[in-house]
């Protein structure tokens, strides 16, 4: 086994923080490798050795497409960041920040020194909470669903075509209502959260949750909250989150300050975006989505085998001639 290693960076913390050394002692990172610290004038990078065979550019690009590998690395990365964050303030680094050796790590720390120190100070004693709002409009308990069942069984006396159209209209109305409610919930939750949060970031909604929630994510926010205000923050958000069953609010955290680690001015590309238009935009998009969903559904009634010549025999999509 030759296989050199490269230096994987998990996060950056203040070098004087004693909690940092407690946190990394005995900590294992990606591939079970021990986690250590590379310090340079007040800043410390939390690092670990990873095999070059996996983390050099070409293999890495390939590996990132492999969800098993990606999940293992992402979870290991997160667990190291999480463990350090539990003891001291840490700036999480983007996944796969890699240097060839520790000298390069020190050089990077020196380059980013001022910005990192300022950000660490701002984040000290603060945690990140995630607040997501979901709409259950497409779930079986949505108001439109019973109508669909009645229509499908033919019990209403309508022709199948009319029943189908009526069902679609009911579904659309129910969706509109649910989205309106969700928007209202998003507004209330954001207002309540703002009272206790120092910073707010509106993230891209999670389209098609990886978790099986069966609901549509319409707001995906992160809040930077002083650890001492976390209880008050959670209470306030929960109070506004209650309400009709078609809207669900999910709180995650506390997280290390992933969403607030980048200095918004120094790094506009990764700066938290505050986008009050998110929820309305989602609601507007939802209508065409459901409308386009009707066409394939109707077409599929003809049966999958009935579509003549569904595939061109000579056109394998992935092969060159």
């Amino acid at each position, binding site marked *: 086994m030759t296989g050199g290693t*490269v230096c994987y*960076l998990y*996060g950056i913390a203040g070098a004087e923080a004693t909690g940092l050394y407690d946190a990394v002692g005995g900590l294992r990172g990606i591939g079970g490798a021990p986690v250590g610290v590379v310090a340079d004038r007040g800043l410390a990078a939390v690092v670990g050795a990873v095999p070059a065979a996996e983390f*050099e550019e070409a293999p890495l690009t390939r590996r990132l497409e492999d*969800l098993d590998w990606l999940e293992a690395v*992402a*979870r290991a990365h*997160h*667990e190291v960041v999480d*463990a350090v*964050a539990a003891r001291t303030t840490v*700036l*999480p*680094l*983007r*996944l796969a920040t890699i240097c*060839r050796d520790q000298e*390069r790590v020190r050089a*990077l720390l020196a380059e*980013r020194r001022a910005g990192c120190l300022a950000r660490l100070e701002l984040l000290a004693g603060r945690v990140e909470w995630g607040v997501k709002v979901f709409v259950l409009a*497409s*779930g079986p308990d949505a108001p439109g669903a019973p109508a669909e069942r009645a229509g499908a069984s033919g019990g209403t006396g309508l022709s199948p075509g009319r029943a189908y159209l009526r069902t679609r209209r009911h579904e659309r109305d129910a969706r509109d209502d649910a989205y309106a409610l969700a928007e209202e919930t998003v507004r209330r939750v954001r207002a309540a959260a703002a009272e206790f949060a120092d910073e707010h970031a509106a993230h891209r909604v*999670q*389209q*098609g*949750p*990886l*978790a*099986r929630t069966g*609901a549509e994510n319409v707001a995906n926010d992160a809040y930077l909250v002083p*650890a001492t205000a976390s*209880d008050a923050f*959670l209470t306030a958000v929960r109070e506004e*989150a209650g309400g009709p*069953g078609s809207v*669900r*609010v999910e*709180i*995650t*955290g*506390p*997280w*290390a300050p*992933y*969403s607030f680690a*980048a200095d918004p001015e120094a*790094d506009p590309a990764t700066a938290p975006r505050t986008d009050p238009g998110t929820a309305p935009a989602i609601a507007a998009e939802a209508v065409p989505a*459901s409308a*386009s*969903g009707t066409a*394939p559904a109707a077409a*599929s009634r003809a049966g*999958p085998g009935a579509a*003549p010549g*569904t595939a*061109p*025999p*000579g*056109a*394998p999509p992935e092969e060159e001639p």
Partner: protein
Amino acid sequence: MTEPLPRDFGGYPSRAAPAYGQGSSANLADILERVLDKGIVIAGDIRINLLDIELLTIKLRLLVASVDKAKEMGIDWWEHDPALSSRARNRSGLAAENARLRAELDALRTGREVLPDADTTAGARTLTGAVPADEDAEVLGAASEERTGERIREAEAGERAERRPARRRRPAAGPRRPREEPPP
């Protein structure tokens, strides 16, 4: 399917738990979102473009690459995603159909090799003629989902392909081919 509200809140005791409760139990989507999309970007020695690996891309690549693996892991979001589910169904049906037709074509080719040339051409023409114009659009659509930004352009390319049935004479061209040729 509707989970009662308290379940989600009950899972995060704010007082009793240690300060950082997420740890290994955190949802994969939330973790990926943060470690791939948030956090400080520092250009190390090994540069990869993580912007190419946004969540959406991962999801869609998964659909094409390893649906079974994802299902094993309990990831089946596309079955709940109204924007994706119909396409997902189409695609798996399409793949099966494609495989079947390819096998038939192979069988045909092997069988025809002993026959006179004229016969082979006639057979090939019949097969080509049977290809519906919208098939190319379907395949294009599937491929284009790797990059959201390309989806629209490719959908347009697909439409162009539909309008020019002459292109169908070369069905063996890969799905990315038509895009590279500027429209006349």
